[in-house]
């Protein structure tokens, strides 16, 4: 039951083959049994889930509801959920119970989905391994000694292990796509502004974007259908109607023009990962696509540009954590300054403090032009590379990450080495275009994700491309051993 698609489960719920309460209990039992090995949830909201499931059953009974009604989902612990602890993976918010609901979780709730709980993540979404969580590292269901990727590592691990049907994630520099790749699931980072940021705890506001994660592209489309669209509460929300993400899933791919950027296949890419990606591209050729080599010449510059812009915006966003209105406050502050500095030093982990300091430095007097402004100029060059490439081709394909999941603890001593792992994902956020990670095979027993990047607001097209691939392959249907038989 845990391996079934949203469409199948929705049909079973409608036919009364199973009730939402039964389905929810099944997933809660799986979490209780398997999550001690993974640590993918920070909070399991059993009571809220069972209440929502009962309400979903009542709605289904009267013949109403959507395809998500009664379906158990999980939310990254960065979306504010009214009345349910929301930590953002930080000690700073260890006791924060939001007085309001994020637009994303509110829309998914209105569609009738059941919230199982809140998933683990790198603190304030800063990390690529999920080892930066105050609540402990998450483990990869395919190999418990490996990281699940980050920062949406809890959501990815939970889906891969069958602890939730689908989940939300957020992606600032690859945080949906890279854990999706490492855990063998499907994930979509939408166009900047397509999904509301209201109630999403901010990391880097000009890059942050929420999106769906699930086993298949079709399931992602179901979640996207509920999440996407204009929201007046988000000042950078795109004022443009959302597409129907399910309508064109079955469109044929004949004549699709795929671009392969040569910079994505150069030095640093694991040869076994490259083999998997090229095999996937061959599969698309069989489906009628044509392939040509393209160039994104400024790709390498996305790393320095991102690691100035994201920390700068973070240093500003995270100034709200001052020990006054919410979050951690130190004991016995001797004055206001002492309260600010100790509350923040105690509440934030090392990586978060480091990024706040990098951003503070980049924005400080005398350095602003050389760092922040320079990074924003380079950001335009990176965007122009994509705009130009997407005039020639319909979509761009390449790997999500240079390697498969790495070992827990293997990169913690050299964070800059970990930053370099983000080379294939950062530029997408800088440009603001949508991109997916689609399971495309395995290298040495660990999943490999194919990245599919498209033009602004082309989410429906990306989902169509991924869905067609998944009609002809079964990489997205593989289940890790630890998840079987439970």
């Amino acid at each position, binding site marked *: 039951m845990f391996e079934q698609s949203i469409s199948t489960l929705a049909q079973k719920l409608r036919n009364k083959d199973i009730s939402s309460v039964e389905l929810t209990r099944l997933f809660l039992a799986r979490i209780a049994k398997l999550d001690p090995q993974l640590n993918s949830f920070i909070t399991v909201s059993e009571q809220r889930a069972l209440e929502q499931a009962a309400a979903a059953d009542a709605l289904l009974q009267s013949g109403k509801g959507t395809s998500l009604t009664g379906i158990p989902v999980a939310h990254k612990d960065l979306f504010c959920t009214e009345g349910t602890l929301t930590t953002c993976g930080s000690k700073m918010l260890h006791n924060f119970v939001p007085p309001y609901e994020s637009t994303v979780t509110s829309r998914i709730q209105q569609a009738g989905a059941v919230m199982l709980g809140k998933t683990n993540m790198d603190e304030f979404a800063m990390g690529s391994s999920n080892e930066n969580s105050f609540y402990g590292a998450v483990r990869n269901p395919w190999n418990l000694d490996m990281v699940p990727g980050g920062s949406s590592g809890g959501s990815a691990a939970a889906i891969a292990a069958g602890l939730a049907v689908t989940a939300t994630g957020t992606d600032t520099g690859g945080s949906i796509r890279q854990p999706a790749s490492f855990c063998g699931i499907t994930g979509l980072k939408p166009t900047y502004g397509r999904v509301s940021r209201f109630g999403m705890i901010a990391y880097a506001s000009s890059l942050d974007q929420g999106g769906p994660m699930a086993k298949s592209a079709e399931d992602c489309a179901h979640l996207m259908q509920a999440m996407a669209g204009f929201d007046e509460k988000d000042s950078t929300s795109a004022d443009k109607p959302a597409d129907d993400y399910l309508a064109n899933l079955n469109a044929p791919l004949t004549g699709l023009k795929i671009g392969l950027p040569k910079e994505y296949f150069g030095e640093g890419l694991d040869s076994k990962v490259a083999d998997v990606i090229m095999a996937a591209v061959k599969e698309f050729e069989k489906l009628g696509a044509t392939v040509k080599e393209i160039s994104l010449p400024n790709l390498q510059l996305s790393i320095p540009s991102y690691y100035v812009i994201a920390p700068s915006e973070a240093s500003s966003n995270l100034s709200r954590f001052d020990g*006054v209105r919410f979050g951690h406050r130190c004991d016995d502050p001797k004055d206001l300054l002492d309260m600010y500095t100790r509350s923040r030093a105690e509440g934030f982990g090392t990586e978060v403090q480091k990024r706040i300091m*990098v951003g503070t430095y980049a924005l400080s007097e005398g350095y602003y032009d050389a760092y922040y402004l320079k990074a924003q100029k380079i950001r335009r060059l990176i965007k122009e590379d994509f705009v130009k490439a997407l005039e020639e081709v319909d979509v761009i394909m390449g790997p999500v990450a240079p390697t498969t999941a790495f070992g827990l603890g293997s990169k913690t001593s050299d964070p800059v080495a970990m930053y370099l792992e983000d080379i294939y994902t950062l530029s997408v956020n800088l440009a603001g275009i949508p991109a997916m990670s689609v399971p495309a095979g395995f290298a040495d027993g660990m999943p490999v994700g194919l990245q599919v990047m498209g033009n602004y607001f082309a989410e429906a097209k990306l989902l169509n491309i991924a869905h067609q691939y998944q009609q002809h392959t079964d990489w997205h249907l593989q289940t890790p051993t630890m998840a079987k038989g439970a």
Partner: protein
Amino acid sequence: MSIDKQDVQKIAHLARLALTETDADQYQHSLSSVLALVEQMQSVNTDGVEPLSNPLEMTQRLREDIVTEENRRDAFLANAPQTEAGLFLVPKVID
């Protein structure tokens, strides 16, 4: 470019982060390695390139200046570490 321990203390002060001596040593090293990484930007010619702050180049949407939220003071105070008489309580600021 590398930064010294004094720079680290100054940045930490601006960021309102309390640092111990050991922290300062550690951050001096890690901040320097990040700054070395971003240094490669300086070799790129960006003359005449406009900075890009919003990927869709959208301008800020404005709304009517009217009250849209109800007063939920108690709900918001519930998350505060210390409150008194409906106010956030902080250490004494003025003697």
